[in-house]
């Protein structure tokens, strides 16, 4: 078995270790289970291409390697949805999970004043983390209205553990304003963000800050699945009860099949692992638990639906495509993402539309899909000189 991870360490974003610290306690038993002679890791690496059937081209640093596979499990996770607003490209405006990850990887937030905005359960978790690491969290602005979050909480009445977690997070945020139906109108500053103008209904006010953490829930990373030709439905990889995609032998687990959080991702991953190794009966034993967790996924999706008024903050000058610096006024006249791409290069830069794709989908209903190899920028050297994964630098702990 070969495990390929984009990050230098295993554990994904949730279990990402603190710089210089021990692995996250919850991750340790899982890492231990992988400590076997038939498991190899390539960390700091990612799939660039699918040059032939049952073959992946994996890039790491300046080298690349082709690997053949029999069964493939896609656990490509999710990224934050970024929506444009005036000033959203200013340095120190970043994602909510992004700021937490940067803090975990050694950036001290101590004494910094931070506005947390956007949407989703991550806002609460990140705000608590930042506060407990010495940041002055000025405010948490959740775009969803209060009634939607109440409905989510009521739905958790039978899920006492999750309800307890949510209430615990709220308690640890005591004293910090938590505003519903509230979002960033614009960010301002010289060379970096210094102030944020917030909107709630017809009210607007300004908060001073050193950092603005702003992300609107999550979007799935489906680029590799698209490249492989897996069927995608409503933005997610479509899978059968064994987590198998429309391509036999290619499975998917976690956020790429639906934004459902860590526990669901783990169950789905386990089902995919068992099913791909001819242990379908054991996999079936996990179906009931998955069903229970899938209900929460549906509730999450309803709770954090984007308010259409978030579109109103975009002005003609607002940058929508950050790689190619394409402003909203250059895009508004186009009827489709494809047309806009050809005329303005929107979505053709290094991120390949991973940031502006979900934004233009929300703003104008454009289809964000259209993956081409290499699915992440590759060097000529990587595409011409092949090495072996055994020779790739890896770090694990």
């Amino acid at each position, binding site marked *: 078995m070969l495990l390929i991870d984009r990050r230098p360490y295993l554990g994904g974003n949730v279990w990402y270790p603190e*710089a210089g610290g021990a692995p996250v306690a919850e991750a340790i038993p899982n890492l231990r289970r992988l400590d076997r002679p038939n498991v190899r890791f390539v960390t700091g690496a990612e799939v660039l291409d699918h040059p032939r059937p049952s073959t992946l081209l994996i890039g790491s640093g300046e080298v690349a390697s082709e690997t053949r596979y029999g069964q493939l499990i896609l656990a490509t996770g999710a990224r934050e949805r970024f929506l444009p607003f005036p000033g959203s490209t200013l340095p120190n405006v970043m994602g909510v999970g992004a700021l937490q990850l940067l803090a975990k990887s050694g950036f001290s937030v101590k004494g910094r004043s931070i506005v947390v905005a956007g949407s989703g359960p991550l806002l609460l978790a990140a705000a608590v983390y930042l506060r407990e690491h010495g940041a002055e969290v000025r405010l948490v602005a959740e775009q969803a209205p209060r009634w939607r979050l109440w409905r989510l909480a009521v739905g958790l009445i039978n899920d006492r553990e999750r309800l307890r977690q949510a209430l615990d997070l709220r308690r640890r945020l005591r004293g910090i304003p938590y505003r519903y139906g509230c979002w960033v109108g614009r960010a301002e500053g010289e060379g*970096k963000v210094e102030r944020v103008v917030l909107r709630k209904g017809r009210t607007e006010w300004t908060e001073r800050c050193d950092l603005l953490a702003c992300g609107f829930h999550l979007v799935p990373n489906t680029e590799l699945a698209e490249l492989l030709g897996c069927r995608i439905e409503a933005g997610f990889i479509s899978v059968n009860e064994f987590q198998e995609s429309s391509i036999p032998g290619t499975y998917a687990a976690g956020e790429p099949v639906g934004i459902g959080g860590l526990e669901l991702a783990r169950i789905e991953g386990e089902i995919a692992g068992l099913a791909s190794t001819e242990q379908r009966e054991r996999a079936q034993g996990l179906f009931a638990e998955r069903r229970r967790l899938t209900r929460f996924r549906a509730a999450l999706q309803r709770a954090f639906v984007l308010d259409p008024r978030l579109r109103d903050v975009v002005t003609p000058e607002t940058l929508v495509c950050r790689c190619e610096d394409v402003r909203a006024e250059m895009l508004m006249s186009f009827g489709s993402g494809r047309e806009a791409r050809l005329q303005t290069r929107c979505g053709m830069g290094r991120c390949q539309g991973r940031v502006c794709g979900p934004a233009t989908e929300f703003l104008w209903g454009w289809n964000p899909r259209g993956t081409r190899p290499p699915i992440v920028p590759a060097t000529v050297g990587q595409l011409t000189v092949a090495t072996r994964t055994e020779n790739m630098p890896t770090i694990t702990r």
Partner: protein
Amino acid sequence: MGPDRIRITIDGTPVNVPPGTSVAAATLSAGVTRFRDAVTGGPRGPLCGMGICFECLVTVNGRRGVRSCLLECAEGMEVQTHDRPS
């Protein structure tokens, strides 16, 4: 056990960071907010923190376009900001 601190330079200025620090975190900690120059010249810094947005690009040991959020600091590393699109 590895060393207590890793020494790197950021735009020629020596800094030392705990092992396990990412280049993006080290750069922000050094007070640098402008990582790369956008195609129309504006300043940009980290956005996604997980390797998908390509906003935190820097030059590391002469290699351009490196995602600083995905790279861990290593002894003697030379980091240059103001990475420009090629």
